[in-house]
């Protein structure tokens, strides 16, 4: 075998091509509910430590959990949005292990009968490529508290004591487990972004990464491209943003390639992502894995979900962000970046959808919505959907532009008036006399005047300085007070100049 040390191997594009990564994502998402999962304490981020607690979420002796029905509804919604199966029977289990920020020293979770099974997450990448990843399951559990270590840097090393805040303990958490269908860090991020978009849109979670309401682990392995068997996986933990997910997976793929290329073997272990160092490091091997001693929680009764409930939830499901995206791109011909921009602003997307419905022209509508209209909105600090421009008014404007009734300069002006005053685009065009002049005779008259007034420029043009055409067109537009059809003006100019 080779005697090269892994750190001496450079991961070249050729090596990245030689190996294929296989990635499975698991992520925890805090559900958005009024109260915690098993008690009446508020489910809200932050606050003075240990102020959102009660006997139940502090695990006082004798306290008992009562499931939050809204959280169960959220789970069903989330599952159905990805086409998951909702089994008629589900249950809660206890996952037993000691940890100071887990009050009961067991977590109420779901082991072998989760609330949702299967389903597919369809996603798209920044370059417009589309992919999909099967879901194994989504199950419901409760969050832990948070420990703060009383050391200089807040880390456990060097701390003499730890403080625990149980405000977060018992917050409902859904764990989404994906199949190992993902092949790159970019795909992993795209998968997560789609999950986040969908949960936000369904109202089941705010998915605020900075508040830790989405936390993600990745199982990463590599194999020779073309191989069918999986390699040994490492589980990467502690990735706190989409950016760190991307960096951590890329770093781990490179590490595994170096291990294998130097003649070593990847071992099954849990590795922590170190954001500052930009590398993963070993935390615990398979041999040290916990035995969680799962068993059905005897404090809780099985959860039954009827077919009627499932049907009722299905009937209220909105169009998913992915479906939206596909419609924007495939039906309206909007580019990926702009389609994504729309999908990520749900109120804007809804406004846009109404405008397109009225205008029947996606591309022209999106140009206004993400162009001048968004600029006006930004300048005034008002969301498009809350401004005075109605989707119907914009549709009129689109029609006026595409039919060449007004030119783009006039369109800008109309939009500004609409933004400030509201009303109808047509009415503004009429009132302001902005209708484009496409009458050949009328424009020809202006062209003649302009040519007569600028003999030197005409001479320049005829001497070969063709770029003065811009000046002449501008002069015609100016003389028409902006109303002349610019292409017709240019055509006539060329004709007269004998070009």
């Amino acid at each position, binding site marked *: 075998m080779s005697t090269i040390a892994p750190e001496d191997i450079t991961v070249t594009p050729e090596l990245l091509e030689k190996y294929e990564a296989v990635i499975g994502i698991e992520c925890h998402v805090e559900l958005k509910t009024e109260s915690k999962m098993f008690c009446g304490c508020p489910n809200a981020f932050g606050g003075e430590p240990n102020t959102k607690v009660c006997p139940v979420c*502090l695990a006082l*002796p*004798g*306290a*008992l959990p*009562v499931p939050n029905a809204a959280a169960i509804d959220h789970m069903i919604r989330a599952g159905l949005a990805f086409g998951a199966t909702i089994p008629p029977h589900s249950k809660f289990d206890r996952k037993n292990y000691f940890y*100071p920020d887990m009050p009961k*020293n067991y977590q109420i979770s779901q082991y072998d009968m989760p609330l949702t099974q299967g389903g597919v997450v369809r996603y798209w990448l920044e370059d417009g490529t589309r992919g999909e990843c099967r879901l194994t399951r989504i199950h419901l559990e409760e969050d832990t508290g948070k420990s703060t270590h009383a050391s200089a840097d807040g880390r456990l090393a060097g701390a003499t004591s730890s403080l*625990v805040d149980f405000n977060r303990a018992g917050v409902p958490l859904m764990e989404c487990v994906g199949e190992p269908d993902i092949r790159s860090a970019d795909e992993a991020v795209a998968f997560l972004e789609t999950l986040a978009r969908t949960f936000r849109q369904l109202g089941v979670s705010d998915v605020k990464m900075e508040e830790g309401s989405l936390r993600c682990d990745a199982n990463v392995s590599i194999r020779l491209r073309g191989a069918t068997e999986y390699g040994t996986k490492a589980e990467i933990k502690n990735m706190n943003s989409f950016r760190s997910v991307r960096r951590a997976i890329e770093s781990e793929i490179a590490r595994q390639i170096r291990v294998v290329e130097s003649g070593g073997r990847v071992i099954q272990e849990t590795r922590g992502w170190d954001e500052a160092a930009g590398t993963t490091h070993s935390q615990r091997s398979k041999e040290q894995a916990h035995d969680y001693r799962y*068993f059905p929680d005897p404090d809780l009764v099985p959860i039954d979900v009827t077919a009627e409930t499932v049907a009722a939830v299905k009937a209220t499901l909105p169009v998913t962000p992915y479906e939206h995206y596909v419609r924007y791109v495939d039906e309206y011909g909007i580019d990926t970046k702009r389609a994504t921009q729309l999908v990520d602003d749900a109120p804007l997307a809804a406004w846009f959808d109404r405008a397109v419905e009225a205008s029947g022209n996606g591309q022209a509508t999106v140009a206004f919505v993400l162009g001048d209209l968004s600029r006006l909105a930004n300048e005034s600090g008002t969301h498009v959907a809350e401004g005075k421009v109605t989707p119907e008014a914009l549709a009129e404007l689109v029609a006026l532009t595409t039919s060449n009734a007004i030119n783009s300069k006039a369109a800008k002006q109309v939009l500004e008036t609409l933004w400030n005053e509201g009303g109808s685009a047509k009415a503004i065009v009429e009132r302001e006399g902005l209708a484009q002049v496409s009458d050949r005779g009328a424009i020809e008259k202006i062209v003649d005047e302009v040519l007569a007034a600028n003999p030197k420029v005409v001479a320049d043009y005829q001497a070969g300085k063709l770029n003065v055409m811009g000046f002449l067109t501008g002069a015609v537009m100016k003389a028409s007070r902006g109303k002349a059809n610019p292409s017709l003006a240019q055509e006539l100019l060329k004709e007269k100049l004998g070009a």
Partner: protein
Amino acid sequence: MDPIKDTAVSIARAVNAKEAAAAEIAEALIPHVSRVDAQLGAYLQLTPELMREHARRVDERVRAGETLPLAGVPVAIKDNMCLTGTRTTAGSKILEHFVAPYTATAVQRLLAAGALPIGKTNLDEFAMGSSCENSALGVTRNPYDLDRVPGGSSGGSAAAVGGFEATLSLGSDTGGSIREPAAFCNIVGFKPTYGRVSRYGLIAFASSLDQIGPFARTVEDAALTYDVIGGHDPLDATSVDRPLEPTAHALREDLRGVRVGIVKEFGLGQLDANVRACYEAAYADLEKLGAELVEVELPTAEYGLATYYLVAPAECSSNLARFDGVRYGLRVDGADVGEMYEKTRAAGFGPEVKRRILIGTYALSSGYYDAYYLKAQKARTKIAEDFARAFARCDVIASPAASTPAFGFNAKSDPVSMYLMDYYTIPVSLAGLPSLSVPCGAVVPEGGTRPMPLGLQLATPLFTERSLLGIAHAYERATRHAEKLSPVEIAAA
């Protein structure tokens, strides 16, 4: 009206009729209990101020025209139930100084019905035991022979009522912890159907089996208490949401038309001759009251003990994980959090609790789960099915509550011999059935000097508390065994 000797029914009647004031009852009880309990040790904590406060409230409410089902009735509460402001210890060093910041639903209902809390009673640590000897915090003696145990785990609550230190008390029963001490202390101990009484605020031992129930000196008092504490509680997901039929006004005087099942596998052959004669007489008395005796089979009942000692420890190993020194209770510091856990739990738990945590942890471990925990759950289902089949042929099953009367201290040093005390009660618990023990006679045990009471266990189908209490009442009225014994005279201090 005698507030020490009378029944809850007559005390409440007198207080509601304004013939007696709750305040007077409290003032009579407080010195009496403190004198008697110096000998019996039924209580871990007396709450005289709380009792006076509740007495004042009861008198005010009665004056305002309210009628309270337990007006002025002195009650004792097993110390594994939370009561705001009282130490709630579960008989364990790990909770020796824990003061509850909230009140258990059953206790809340009892007090809201006008009961006066005398104090918190001793128990086997975390309700694990059958003699009260596993308490880390005190010794409770049997009121009928101070050299004998009161039974357990609800030994303090049973001794308090049997020794006339309380009119009623609350106990909890996981595998027999109400019925066995009731038998030992010459009183009625009633475990309702699992799910009938809220467990909210009851320190869990084995969640799928734990059930709160009353101790009383008459079936009617037990029924009255059950009517108060029973019923759905939104704070306990396992509490059953179905209407509670009042039982106290539906008691019967004879057993005509009742089929009493005698379990073939529970043959009396193994029992001491005197004990056996007592149970044979009890069965004959049931027949005299008009009941028809039928033999029923419970072929899987013999697996009850083994099943129970997997299910209950498995649940307890998880339930007791919260006692870790982090948030409340005992903490013994260590170099790191792991050592703190170890030292705290090593110092805080007694040997029986540790034994069960170990058994339970093992039974749930990867690779053993199927062979132990899962198999035990299957056996539990079979046992419940056996009972259901038996109840197709009878209305009630009668058996001994325990195989012996109360034994002496340290008589059961081997844990399995202690576990066998619950041989008759455990299968009933595994099936979740309503069940009680009613006094059925007395025998002078070997080496004893005084006759010691025995209890007849009666069990009926799920949710048939009304039928069960009716049958027990008819038997009690006809036989009046409890009245034939008196507790040891406690000399004035």
